[in-house]
């Protein structure tokens, strides 16, 4: 009321007396905000009124509902995978096992996104960190017989150390040079895996069948819930996607808080970041990004070993690194959920093509090596990776996440396209 009276008095000086009636009407109109507040239940755009809202992970009912939905999907997919709507996928080569692999690769892709998407350090060496986790788990799990609770922490710790040892190289190099050095890392790693025969089994590889997969109260190889017993595929799915959620949640919390902002400052311009006081030194954010990214990849490797059962140097080649890069480019650089979407698509697509071409036959594609055809399925898959990388970078460099954000923004203001 007070503010109104002053505005009335100031306007009185310049306006004719006839118009002085207006403030009274304006006061009556102020009833409206009550209605406006009710309308704000469906905000036109993303509106955060308090800082607290801005910091919440699940800021509105829609997001919370989505979370609940995802948990339901996670819980019921293994049970319902052979029931009609899902048979479209499960009947065409995408088994629960494929989804478990997709989960493992999601974890690794989140690690790479932390390094490349958030910190801007390009790495072609991600498959090496995956291999460190896989080989160490196969060794301590089946040779030394460590329990699950130990190896699941040992592999990331080892990965962290290797990453921290590689990280300092990134301090002195950038851009093109860093790409080449991480490429060198892949070759050096592959050479070590092929020749350190006592641990890695050399060219033929090593078995991870003896790795124990039970936590004492739950046995993931022979799970029984509510009086029903589940096989390895189902329980692996639950275990791995639970860990995907944990890693995604932890990483999300890192990137949306102070260290995450520091990483993004380093990505956008490292000298500027250094000048405003962000530590880019030997124990600084760049090195730590390498170390944590490697730790996450090693965790993925640790889960990969018992899933794959037999690991060999052929599983950790340059192509695997490129696949991870394809995942984060396709899904969306600098987003966590983008890494997961990308990993799902890149892992499932080859199996889907495999399944489709085996069942129906795709013109020009040879499903088996004995068939005649223009390209083999394996070649076609590699061509598709290459094509997807190039296409997304040229057309939509923010990936599927970018497309999703655009759709969401369009509908959040629908039908007004301002």
């Amino acid at each position, binding site marked *: 009321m007070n503010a109104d009276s002053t505005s009335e008095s100031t306007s009185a000086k310049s306006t004719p007396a006839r118009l002085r009636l207006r403030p009274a009407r304006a006061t009556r109109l102020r009833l409206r905000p009550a209605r406006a507040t009710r309308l704000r239940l469906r905000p036109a755009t993303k509106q955060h009124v308090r800082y607290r809202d801005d910091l919440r992970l699940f800021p509105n009912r829609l997001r919370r509902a989505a979370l609940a939905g995802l948990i339901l999907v996670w819980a019921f997919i293994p049970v319902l995978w052979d029931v009609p709507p899902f048979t479209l996928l499960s009947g065409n080569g995408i088994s629960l096992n494929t989804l478990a692999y997709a989960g493992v690769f999601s974890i690794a892709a989140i690690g790479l996104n932390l390094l*490349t998407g958030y910190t*801007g350090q*390009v790495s072609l060496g991600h498959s090496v960190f995956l291999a460190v986790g896989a080989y160490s788990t196969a060794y301590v799990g089946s040779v030394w017989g460590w329990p699950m609770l130990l190896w699941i922490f040992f592999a990331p710790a080892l990965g962290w150390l290797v990453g921290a040892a590689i990280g300092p*190289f990134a301090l*002195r*190099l950038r*851009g*093109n*040079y860093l*790409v*080449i*050095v991480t*490429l*060198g890392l892949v*070759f*050096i790693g592959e*050479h070590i895996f*092929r*020749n350190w025969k006592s641990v890695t089994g050399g060219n033929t590889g090593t078995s991870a069948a003896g790795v124990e997969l039970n936590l004492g109260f739950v046995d993931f190889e022979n799970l029984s819930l509510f009086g029903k017993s589940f096989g390895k595929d189902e329980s692996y799915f639950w275990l791995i996607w639970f860990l995907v959620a944990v890693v995604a949640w932890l990483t999300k919390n890192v990137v949306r808080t102070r260290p995450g902002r520091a990483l993004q400052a380093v990505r956008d*311009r490292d*000298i*500027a970041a250094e*000048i405003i006081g962000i530590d880019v030194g030997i124990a600084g954010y760049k090195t730590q990004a390498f170390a944590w990214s490697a730790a996450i990849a090693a965790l993925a490797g640790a889960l990969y070993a018992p899933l794959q059962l037999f690991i060999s140097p052929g599983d950790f080649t*340059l192509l695997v690194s*490129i696949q991870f*890069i*394809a995942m984060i*480019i396709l899904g969306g650089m600098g987003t966590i959920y983008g890494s997961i979407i990308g990993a799902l698509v890149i892992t499932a697509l080859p199996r889907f093509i495999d399944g489709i071409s085996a069942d129906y036959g795709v*013109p*020009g594609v040879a499903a088996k090596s004995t068939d005649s*055809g*223009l*390209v*083999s399925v394996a*070649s*076609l898959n*590699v*061509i598709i*990776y*290459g*094509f*997807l*990388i*190039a296409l997304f*970078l*040229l057309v939509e*460099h923010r990936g599927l996440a970018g497309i999703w954000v655009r759709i969401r923004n369009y509908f959040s203001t629908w039908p007004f396209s301002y």
Partner: protein
Amino acid sequence: MTTFLQATFDGVALGSLYALIVLGFVVIYRATGIINFAQGGALLFGGYFTYNVSTSWGWNYYVGIILSVLVCAGFSVLLQRAMLQRVFREVVGISAGLLGWATLFYNGTTHLVGLSGGVVIGVLALLATARIEARYGDKGPSELPLFGAIMVTIGVLFIVKQVVASIWGFAELSVNDPWELSTSRVGGLVLQHSKLAAIAMAVLALGVFFLVDRYSRIGVAMRATHFDHEAAIAQGISTKIVFATAFAIAGGVAALAGTAATAGPELITPNLDFVVFFAFPAMIVGGLDSPAGAVAGGLLVGWIQNLVKTYVATTPAWFPIEDLDWLGAGFERVAIFVVMIIVLMVRPYGLLGTEEVRRV
């Protein structure tokens, strides 16, 4: 001493091959500022094209080399336009060409008919798109971030490799080269003729390149564009032509390298592109933007690789560790990466490269 000289000769031959490959990278890097991984694809394509001309068509091998250099230069320019300048019509042209080739081949024609049909269809699609673009406006080239550009070239490398494998198969093939296994003996040294040919090819190509780069108009324009992009445009230099020339040179050199790498006792397979990855240490050691560095780095790394290979196999008497077998087969290829990392730690921009000034 003979062992050392033999290793040196083989090293120089390998080094010439590396120098050829690296020269392609350096020329493109000077023009565009990116490492073009698709060079591996050009090398593969060049090698196989020479094979095709000399074996499948039965023409003279040297004609094959020349044709291959020309075709690869054109191929490389097309790739550059498609992937780095976001020129829509080339993308459409290449895709339509591939599709046309695929359809023709699938309907029972030979690869050659399919390929030429594909080229015709691709060119028609390219022209049609150009017409449409001319009518409805051209968005023009725009810049990709560095990481994006490198990744696009890697994507293209994978595509080209698989396409080549689909055309010529995964089997190891022998190119019909005139040198085969013949050798000469000088003193105690065994000089393979194919290695001498590789050295000759490198000397010839590098010599021509340095003359063009130093004295011709386009060479000066290329150096000017590298020195200051905008000033060069202001002086009336067409950067489009400079980029195209750089990629054409790189493509031609890659075809030569592909030919040199498969001559003599070597066979050609679609995994030939890996030789490009092993040329990276040479590129880094020499410096990314220096053609002279390409030669120095190539020779140095080739030499080191062969020395390591020789002396790991037969450890010299003075060496404290007798048996080096635990290093594993192919250790020399890892050794050059280790050398590369050491050089990078001491001189982050290579031996002859220019240091990049960092600004906020």
